[in-house]
């Protein structure tokens, strides 16, 4: 019997896609704020004012003829990430981790000639990866050097932390680890591993891949039970500050822990997925209802973070 009854799902408090779209995204996310999160370049600038750090911007390619500048710029770089500013779901992101003669090497070890990267930039500019097919710009960012104690869990690619922020309160978090199946990407539907994180402590709860519970990382073979995220409260507070920066009531904040700079914001997502519930083994609904039921919301990101850590801890 591979089905679960709606009654049981309601008891667990699972948020489903239709409810998320109608009751949360449509209700709490102002359409006018979307460009801010759908465009990584704008996100970078907006959150910068709220003391949220992002990876260093190396170049912005806006026009077809600027692609030749990219070649000059990338001449002596060994690692960088090319991202479409309006891409969604990790589409169109190419991460280069090294050089092999004139060719570049992807995180997966595949070699890419520079011409192919240029075609990729062309595609980005034409809007191949943007949400509505509109013309786009490509941003080239410094490569994030993941902190080693987290990086060892991930098979290539940088592990990142997804935090759902509701009305400025961080309410659920998970660690996403790339696998061979996900080609160095941290998207769960592509086969990345999701590890639920306890909001109070930053410790791992349980893990899923392809929606199925696992205990070991499929590629590195490491146990996923006792992961502990460093400077957890800082990260949550950083995520909470993104609410002031964007005004989005329901969003997903993607953070990475850099070996030198600490937590960095990778991107914001106005339509965060539902797989985080599977990774945490509990539904979002009770926490959403708890926040909606607050008589007096807290004003500062710090207060909101502390409230969330106190209320939603399971340890």
């Amino acid at each position: 019997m591979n089905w679960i009854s709606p009654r049981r799902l309601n008891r667990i408090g699972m948020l489903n896609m239709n409810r998320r779209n109608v009751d949360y995204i449509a209700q709490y996310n102002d359409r006018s704020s979307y460009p801010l999160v759908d465009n990584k370049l704008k996100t970078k600038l907006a959150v910068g004012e709220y003391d949220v750090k992002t990876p260093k911007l190396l170049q912005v390619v806006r026009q077809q003829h600027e692609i030749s500048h990219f070649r000059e710029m990338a001449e002596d770089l060994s690692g960088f990430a090319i991202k479409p500013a309006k891409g969604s779901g990790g589409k169109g992101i190419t991460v280069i981790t090294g050089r092999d003669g004139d060719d570049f090497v992807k995180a997966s070890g595949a070699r890419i000639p520079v011409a192919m990267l240029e075609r990729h930039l062309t595609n980005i500019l034409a809007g191949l990866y943007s949400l509505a097919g509109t013309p786009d710009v490509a941003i080239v960012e410094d490569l994030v050097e993941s902190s080693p104690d987290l990086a060892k869990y991930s098979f290539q690619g940088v592990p990142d932390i997804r935090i759902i922020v509701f009305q400025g309160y961080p309410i659920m978090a998970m660690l996403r680890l790339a696998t061979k199946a996900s080609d160095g990407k941290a998207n769960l539907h592509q086969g990345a591993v999701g590890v639920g994180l306890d909001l109070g402590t930053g410790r791992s709860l349980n893990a899923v891949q392809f929606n199925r519970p696992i205990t070991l990382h499929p590629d590195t073979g490491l146990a996923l039970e006792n992961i502990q995220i460093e400077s957890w409260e800082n990260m949550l507070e950083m995520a909470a500050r993104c609410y002031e920066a964007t005004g989005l009531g329901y969003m997903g904040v993607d953070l990475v822990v850099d070996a030198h700079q600490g937590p960095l914001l990778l991107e914001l997502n106005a339509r965060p997925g539902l797989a985080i519930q599977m990774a945490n083994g509990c539904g979002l609904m009770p926490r959403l209802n708890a926040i909606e039921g607050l008589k007096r919301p807290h004003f500062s990101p710090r207060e909101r973070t502390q409230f969330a850590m106190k209320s939603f801890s399971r340890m």
Partner: protein
Amino acid sequence: MTVRSRIPFYVAVFLLITAGLSVATWRHFEMGIPWMTGEQQPVWMVEARVDFQGYGDSAQVNLHVPQQPPGFRILTEQAASPGYGFSILENNGGRRAEWTKREVAGPQTLYFKTQFVPDETIVQQPPTRVPKPYTVFWEEPQATAVRELLNQATERSSSPESLTRELITLMQPDNRTQNSTMLVSDENYLQVLVRMLNHAGIAARTADALKLEDARRRQHLVPFLQIFNGERWLTFDPRTAEQGVPENLLLWRQGSESLLDVVGGDTSQVSFSMLRQTIPALQLAAREAASNGLSALSFYQLPIEEQSMFRMLLLLPIGALMVAFMRMVIGIRTSGTFMPVLIAVAFVQTTLVPGLIAFLSVVAIGLLLRGYLSSLNLLLVSRISALIILVIFITAGLSIVGYQMGFNTGMTVTFFPTVIIAWTIERMSILWEEEGPREVVVQGAGSLFVAICAYLAMSRPLAGHLTFNFPELHLVILGLILLMGQYTGYKLSELRRFNPMKAYD
């Protein structure tokens, strides 16, 4: 965004749905548009044939034609008579068809065709002026006989109707007395009856009726008796005293007008032939709509070409409803939101199996060629444009090859919207590069599955019939789609997807 009350929304949806349903019901009853396809309605085609001999001079032929026979609705009228001028004259309550010609010589035949639709709701209208019985003078000895007969009948009766019935009974051959025998001969029986009734103070007249039977020719009118009971004219069969107009009896002539007048000819006679036709109720409704103002609400007035275009167009909402249901309630992933609807529309034109074969082969060939295009390093717009041209080549190639091999299925490729196919190929190709072939198969199969479901819904004759003839039903579809947009429950696919959560319950 603040929290809005949902009540106005639900009220609006409810209003939309009730408006759609009630307008449809109203038009069903008002215009007789049938709910189901292929409903048939009997229609009597009656042809009056006038024969006469012309003198070689100008002629004028005047035929009484029915105005409002009780129990029937007149659908069409036409005259067929080459060389004659024709018009229909209306004068104080009677309608007459008039043929005129300058020179008429030898035997002539004129035709007047009418289509009648049986309609229970049409009853004898009360006359505008109350008819008065005329005074009748009888010579002796008839006067005495009449008096006797009327006395007898009056004693056994209480109302004009019963008096008439009694009188008819008394005058029947098998219970005739000396009195009635003296009065009545076979030819003048009805005339005497009418005179006697008028004498008794009841306005009476004759009427001519036609017994409708399928495929009869050379029929003649049968005389009937009508009396006025103070409210309306009642019809009696003067042979059996039966009251009322039986079914399949068409009163062709009522009142005192003559049936046929011919000026400039002689030996004229009228005969009738009739035919029972069944025509689709829809055609009937469309024809009748043309004659009253309700037609403004329907497509029947449009040229046929536009009508057939609208037939296709009005199927789209059904496909949209299907896609909305499949995506929001079932949770099937499709490539592009409304690509399935457009594919389904194409299927409606190509029929399913040839359409599927054509579609799959075009997309497969397109994907192969797109693989080559991707190595050319083109900008997106030029790549799509190149793809469009390639898709046109592929469809042309498939059509020609199919035709040479003797398949007509090859021709059906042309119904698929080229641009949509090009975009589909482009999307699938990118999906392939990014997510691998598995996702391509999942989304492709999902799209095709939804398209086939939409096609099955759209290709039902009933669907085409209802959407085209009751365009207001689209309000109902709109309401349903709006309701679905508010559905916040679980999708069917999520019940599978969240299945592992059982462990944490």
